[in-house]
């Protein structure tokens, strides 16, 4: 259709102009997905972290600082006065930024283009380290991608409703778990990808990785060997959108429920409670 050719961009701001340019340059990769973002880091529980968030978080607290992402930027707030957080730094990350995760002074940011690593400096400002472009594993797609990490490995779930044609003309849905070697934050390397049904939020705790599968439930993996993770159990009697793994309690949120499990035996989670809210 001719309208494809005659459309005239009318940028409304410099930011938008930049986005147009980026988008134009990246059209070839523009089959994308939109995930809502709340990447939590169920795995994170260092002493400096007062709260744990699910993997779709876009705003997290680390020590006296707040970090937030919007579509393009990483924003640092000084919250040493808890009643008056102040923006102290802002830097551009990239495009279509979705999720923010913290582990041991490092930030892991998921966008539809890839995963970015930052190290929080002494002054609280994160410094860019490296990135892993999802085009390495998904040349045609822009997935949704919450990410979690420990000292050595980051895991991201990549999901897109949009079917993607491969070079042989076959189509496939994107539903992938990516394990990345982050031993060197400046040089993130692919370890392996795994196919996982409808992957959404995830949480990492020790050698256990919990992956929400939306309407397909939740899967527990043993990730002692990131290049050969093993499924320990799968719950199918529930929906799962995002998850926090805290101590021995797994907190799972779906669209309409909060469900908690005892995961001390990860091969057989025990349901502790399930509340279709409200329960008063």
């Amino acid at each position, binding site marked *: 259709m001719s309208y494809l050719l005659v459309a005239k961009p009318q940028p409304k701001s410099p930011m938008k102009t930049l986005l147009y340019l980026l988008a134009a340059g990246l059209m070839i990769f523009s089959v994308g997905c939109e995930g809502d973002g709340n990447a939590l880091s169920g795995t994170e529980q260092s002493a400096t972290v007062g*709260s744990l968030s699910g993997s779709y978080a876009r705003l997290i607290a680390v020590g006296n600082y707040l970090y937030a992402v919007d579509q393009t930027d990483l924003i640092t707030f000084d919250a040493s006065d808890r009643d008056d957080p102040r923006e102290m730094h802002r830097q551009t990350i990239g495009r279509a930024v979705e999720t923010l995760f913290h582990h041991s002074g490092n930030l892991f940011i998921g966008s539809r283009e890839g995963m970015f690593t930052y190290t929080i400096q002494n002054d609280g400002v994160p410094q860019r380290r490296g990135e892993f472009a999802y085009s390495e594993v998904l040349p045609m797609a822009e997935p949704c991608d919450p990410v979690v990490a420990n000292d050595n490995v980051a895991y991201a779930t990549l999901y897109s409703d949009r079917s993607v044609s491969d070079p042989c003309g076959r189509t496939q849905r994107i539903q992938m778990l990516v394990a990345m070697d982050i031993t060197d934050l400046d040089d993130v390397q692919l370890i392996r990808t795994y196919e996982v049904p409808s992957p959404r939020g995830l949480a990492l705790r020790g050698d256990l990785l919990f992956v929400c599968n939306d309407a397909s439930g939740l899967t527990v993996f043993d990730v002692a060997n990131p290049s050969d993770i093993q499924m320990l159990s799968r719950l199918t009697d529930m929906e799962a959108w995002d998850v926090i793994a805290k101590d021995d309690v797994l907190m799972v949120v779906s669209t309409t429920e909060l469900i908690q499990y005892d995961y001390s035996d990860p091969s057989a989670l025990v349901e502790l409670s399930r509340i279709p809210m409200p329960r008063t």
Partner: protein
Amino acid sequence: MHLGLASHLQAFRFPALVLSAALLLPGCSIWDSLAPEEVPDEVFGRRPVYLDVGGDPQSIYSLPPRALRNGAGIVTDGIWLYIIDLNTGVHVIDNTDPEDPISIAFIWIPGVRTATILDGRLIANNLGDLVTINIDDPTNAQVVDRDSGLFLDDLNFPEGFFGFFECYDPSRGILLDWEDANIRNPKCRTF
């Protein structure tokens, strides 16, 4: 920050992003408004669903516990659990006993998409603003700080949809969602 931009963002940009979050759709990258000669009479496309916040979109307050409608995130600081209900607010749950969690309050926060807890304060986005909320008494939440226009999200188009759509009009409210519809004279299109 420049006030003009701030108000623009608050009214215009962040809501749109929230919508696409709700949809979880595959996305496209750009949209455009159309020249007059490009506007079709009537086509199948998408139109905005506006959120009626029932008043001031900056008004934040506690309500009794209510059903979770669009769970989008979870935060905990120990015994308390906070469930983000996309666009509408945060459920506060006493999780002292995970076998018997008790819903205490719902904090109405228009346009909320993400929230965290810092030193007992609930910090969340209220559309494009960052708000700090005293929840010492969750049934009587009080905003103690607001920083306007911080979130430059810019997805005021139906992410993941390719075709004509009715342009988002910020004067009509907060953009909550997009719906399929036969639309007349749409002046916007994704590509």
